[in-house]
């Protein structure tokens, strides 16, 4: 297991908190009509992306689904510009043309933000192909929902990745539901991490509410992939506190189930660890809380004051 420095603990806590506050603010703006369309929140799943992020190289690539706000924040992208995309403004990462589900930052090797379930999996595999092709030591992290694990192209991608020993780390974010359908109603065989077995892809299941478990698994898997052994699958057991998207009342699950997961809140776990290890005092934690709130508030402010795209933008970016 990689050695975590004191600063790492603070970094993890700050990032997870930043994601949480961001999502809460996005929900508020959605309610105000400042954000439209579909908007999928990451609350509850923060430890997944932050844990993975602790083990990566800056030149590694990433590709994920429409549930992407947290992924971008963890990648170190500017919450102001993420929020501005959600409000459909000029300063957004996609200049207001992509919206919540379709955000990209090539500069940061962040290849989306994909709205079509499963599509990101072959794409991530192709990005990994490029790393290998170019002789780079980098890997591509490709996130997959539990629901997406029943989409055929996923298995075509697995086969290709294994066949060509591509440096791709598949991370299944198993948050127990694909929209209103629980995993057991959609998947025959609940061990999603074993679905690469037939292709010879090693897989592992991890507690995704605990960032330390995620880091440990990601570290091991990342090394395996980076050393040229081919793909690896991590299935992270996590939970989304909110509905599938803003418009989902999530009636298909019980309040007890939700409350149960909240008992193991990923942010609280890190906080407790920080206090226990005396890495920071309560006051210092409070300061982070306050600063984070402030930062996100400013981001929202920025996002609703950024101008709408110019009309002429309708016709740009169709071709290069």
């Amino acid at each position: 297991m990689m050695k975590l420095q004191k600063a790492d603990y603070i970094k993890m806590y700050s990032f997870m908190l930043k994601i949480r506050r961001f999502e809460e603010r996005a929900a508020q703006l959605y309610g105000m009509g400042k954000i439209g369309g579909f908007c999928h929140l990451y609350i509850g799943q923060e430890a997944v992306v932050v844990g993975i992020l602790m083990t990566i190289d800056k030149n590694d690539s990433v590709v994920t689904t429409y549930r992407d706000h947290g992924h971008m924040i963890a990648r170190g992208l500017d919450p102001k510009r993420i929020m501005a995309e959600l409000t459909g403004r000029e300063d957004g990462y996609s200049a207001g043309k992509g919206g919540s589900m379709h955000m990209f930052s090539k500069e940061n090797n962040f290849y989306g933000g994909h709205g079509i379930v499963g599509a990101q999996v072959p794409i991530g595999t192709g990005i990994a192909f490029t790393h290998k092709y170019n002789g780079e030591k980098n890997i591509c992290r490709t996130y997959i929902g539990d629901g997406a694990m029943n989409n055929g192209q996923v298995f075509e991608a697995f086969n290709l990745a294994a066949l060509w020993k591509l440096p791709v780390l598949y991370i299944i974010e198993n948050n127990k539901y694909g929209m209103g359908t629980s995993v057991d109603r959609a998947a025959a065989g609940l061990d999603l991490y074993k679905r690469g077995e037939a292709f010879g892809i090693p897989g592992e299941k991890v507690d995704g509410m605990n960032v330390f478990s995620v880091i440990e698994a990601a570290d091991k898997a990342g090394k395996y992939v980076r050393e040229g052994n081919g793909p690896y699958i991590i299935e992270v057991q996590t939970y989304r506190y909110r509905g599938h998207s803003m418009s989902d009342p999530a009636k298909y699950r019980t309040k007890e189930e939700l409350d149960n997961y909240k008992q193991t809140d990923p942010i609280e776990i890190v906080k407790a660890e920080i206090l226990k290890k005396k890495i920071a005092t309560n006051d210092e934690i409070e300061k982070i809380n306050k600063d984070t709130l402030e930062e996100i508030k400013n981001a929202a402010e920025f996002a609703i004051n950024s101008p709408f795209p110019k009309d002429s933008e309708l016709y740009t970016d169709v071709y290069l």
Partner: protein
Amino acid sequence: MSTEILMPALSPTMTEGNLSKWLIKKGDTVKAGDLIAEIETDKATMEVEAVDEGVVLDLLFKEGEANIPVNKAIAIIGDPNEKVEVKKEAPVEKVIEEKKIEKNIETKIETKQDDIIDTTSPKIEEDTNLSSEEITMRQALRDTMAEEMRKDNKVFVLGEEVAEYQGAYKVTQGLLQEFGKERVLDTPISEHGFTGLAVGAAFKGLRPILEFMTFNFSMQAIDHIINSAAKTLYMSGGQINCPIVFRGPNGAAAQVAAQHSQDFSSWYSQVPGLKVIAPSTPYNAKGLLRSAISDPNPVIFLENEILYGLKGPVNNDVNFSIPIGKANIEKEGKDLTIVTYSIMLQKSKEAALKLKEEYNLDAEIIDLQTLRPLDIEKILDSVKKTNRLITVEESWPFGSVGSEIANIVQRDAFDYLDSPVIKVNSADVPMPYSLSLEKLYLPQVDDIINAAKKVSYIK
């Protein structure tokens, strides 16, 4: 008896070949299966076997000779005692010639008359069996599915979130409760797989209603829709039909951006073997969905998310249907014709009101209802009366349903037109997310008015 050995076509695209090597010589005896020559095609060099037996009487080309047309005699085998006469001109280049002919014919798109049931579309104004209560389009669709499921237990529903969740847009509300989980099935997010499965079930005699959460996701299943559902009747020489309805919302919703806001009406309308329907009101949704479910062919049923909440009266007779292939004259008029379908009917009606008020233009509105087969007759009749035509639809402009209508009208009613046909479509770009750009992208009432003014030469 002698036999000619002809230059074989060794690939579907090969029209001529090079004789790279003879493996036999004059006087040899060949048996079926013996290698006789090496032929170089457009793709590879291949060996050719004899299929007939005899003595090689003559080799008509030398090794290395190039560009020998397919089906030209290259050798003659037979009985050595027989006198051989070599034909000067080798037979037929049939394959190639046929292709040429095909290209020169203008393909007329016309539905065989007997494909369309000879009835007209019932008119809501004249319907004596109209409900006093107004219901939503959502409910009209739901009720019709339930009615057909009650009549025929071969009808079943499958799709994502259609059962326990009651439909992502609540169109299948209550179906699970009434018909149970054998007939209302939640699928995993496996569009390609469950579409293929439903097509297989339809081949074998069931009548699936397959809901795409939205038609955007039908792209994952496009192969089975086009290659399996639409073509198998033809490929099986009429043996295997595919009675299936693919339904779900199509077109733009609200701010869901490029991957979730697309209109596929012209894509599907291009495909022989599919029927394509796009209802615009609860009334016609009901009548058309019934026809779709009863139809022995694959039907693409394009709903619209924004229209789900639209209310109106319906005909509650469980046998009420609207024939496929019949347009509805939504409003009669004399000055110009507006041909439209689905959600754009609403905007066209709004535009027509303003055209009357502000420009004293009396527009006739045709609601297509079915896009394939197209009700060409009604469109032509109207254009012959008004002499001006605009088409209004949400799809992209290139090769849209309006493009085909414009083509037909210029072909069959050229002399009646007083102005070029004008199409109103969405912008020729992917759908943007931002609210302001989204509005610009979609056809608006003003765009329709401007087109109407233009065909009427009003500044």
